[in-house]
């Protein structure tokens, strides 16, 4: 178990380094420097700017410095567009917001999805089961950028129940969380349902029932754990999807999270901020996948490396 965990960590660290180096090389190879604009800069000014940001160093030194600053000080350097702001400040302003509704959405998607899936499997072929299946088929075509305008249309413009955006308190959290979690909730419900159905048909469940255990104990103690394996392996992709989806949420609901900084920097060609966000999101994803892998190895005793 410990060897397995260490092995996973040993894979995660080079992955992160590769991600940093690749995004740095992409930025370096891009046509036009960060200071290319409509107004041609005098060569001396350009040289001074390049010297200030360390862009006249040899490539290996630039990469080395960049990686070193991130690893040792979590420092992504200065923004290329806003002269008085660092990438850390820009990201730091939005990150708590993204984290809040991201975690909420994740918890909602997992708890509602798993409960719905288990309920549908236990009441197989009932109205509840059909409703759950119908919902999960429908939600496949309702990604966050479709859910967001529909929610605003219904709850803000027609019913007037909820504010259409902003980040001022729990009632502004509701729509972002629903928009972000719906499609993942549906997927989790579908995966839970089919794996639960399979587990409920297996021999150890029949044995548990035969020895006279009450049904809720059979389901919670004997069926749930093995049925969770496919769900856990879906959590990684779901996490990536939610992180990506947060960009839409920030743009559409003006929540002020990190996605707004990302799209703004994409439109401004502020490479430093874009890279900072990409690397941060990549690091989060890799860490999360690491946790999921370890969790998987812990739940499933058959996994041996």
């Amino acid at each position, binding site marked *: 178990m410990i060897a397995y965990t260490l092995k996973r960590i040993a*894979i995660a660290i080079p992955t992160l380094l590769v991600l940093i180096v690749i995004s740095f090389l992409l930025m370096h190879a891009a046509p036009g420097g960060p200071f290319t604009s409509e107004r041609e800069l005098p060569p001396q000014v350009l040289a001074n700017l390049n010297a200030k940001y360390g862009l006249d160093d040899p490539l290996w030194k630039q990469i080395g410095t960049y990686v070193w600053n991130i690893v040792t000080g979590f420092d992504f350097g200065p923004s290329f567009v806003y002269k008085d702001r660092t990438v850390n400040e820009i990201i730091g302003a939005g990150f708590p917001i993204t984290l809040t509704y991201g975690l909420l959405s994740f918890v909602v998607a997992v708890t509602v999805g798993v409960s719905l899936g288990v309920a549908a499997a236990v009441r197989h072929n009932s109205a509840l089961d059909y409703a759950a299946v119908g919902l999960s088929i429908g939600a496949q075509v309702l990604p966050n*950028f479709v859910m967001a305008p529909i929610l605003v249309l219904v709850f803000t413009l027609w019913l007037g129940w909820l504010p259409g955006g902003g980040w001022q308190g729990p009632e502004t959290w509701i729509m972002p969380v629903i928009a972000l979690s719906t499609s993942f909730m549906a997927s989790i419900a579908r995966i839970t349902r089919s794996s639960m159905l399979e587990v409920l048909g297996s021999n150890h469940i029949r044995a548990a029932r035969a020895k006279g255990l009450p049904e809720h104990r059979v389901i919670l103690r004997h069926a749930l754990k093995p049925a969770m394996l496919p769900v856990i392996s879906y959590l990684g992709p779901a996490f990536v999807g939610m992180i990506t989806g947060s960009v839409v949420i920030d743009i559409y609901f003006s929540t002020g999270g990190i996605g707004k900084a990302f799209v703004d920097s994409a439109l401004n060609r502020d490479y430093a901020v874009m890279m900072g966000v990409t690397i941060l999101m*990549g690091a989060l994803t890799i860490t999360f996948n690491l946790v999921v892998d370890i969790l998987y190895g812990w739940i499933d005793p058959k996994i041996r490396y």
Partner: protein
Amino acid sequence: MVATAEQTAEQAAPAAGRSLWADARRRFFRNRAALLGFVILVFVTAFALFGGALAQWSGEELDYAVMGQVAELGGPSLATGHYFGTDDLGRDLYARTVQGTQISLAVGVIGALIACVVGTLYGATAGYFGGRTDSVMMRLVDIFMAVPYMFILILLLVMYGRSITILFIGVGLISWMEMARIVRGQTLSLKGREFVEAARATGVSAPVIIARHIVPNLLGVIAVYATLLVPLMILTESFISFLGLGVQEPMTSLGALISEGAGTIAYGTTWQLGFPLLFFCLTLFGFFFVGDGLRDALDPKDR
């Protein structure tokens, strides 16, 4: 009597000999959801290809009669010739939806093709050679899969200009990993078969064996996952276009149209969101249903 006649027909049919593909086709068309998906796809494709012929306006000219009063005058109507209404600038939404559907379908199909070719070659190579090559190649796939590609793709689009070619290729290049895994698994089980052994014994080289003996036997699996990849490609493209970073004006895609419509719902022009959304959902439903149907038809052991 009728039942007996049917039974005789059922029994006689295998004697006539059905190919694998004919068998799959029969199963596919018996599946109601798949059939519905197929009909939807035919309709959406026809709309994308020939819908332009019915348009009374081009997607680029402005209708000065409704300009400035889009919310009052720009709604869907047969009288003005704007079947789906106009967009915020007074352009015909019907013509723009036709164009958006074309672009979205094209991105979906081309992206899925790229993902298929790369994923199949990669997976078949890893699976066929096995051993250390395989474990290195698949470890790389594991690493690639842990990266949030949407950000990298947007990074690429911004740095190298927001051209539609990069969008097409990029969407495909970020999605081949799942395909590579599936193909590798299938190749592992195929390469021990006698016909591969026979080919190897007669001295056929590895690339030829992969291209002539392994890949043709995987076509069923590839077809299924290709169909399921198309809607994912469309989702990716629409996501990027929704953020305003994908397809650029005057060209449009369903994602860009949904984005425009979503931005103007506060002014009471709900049709600007509704029609693109309808075609978006129809297209996705169609591909998902057909993909699931194909999986059931081509992979009977999985039912």
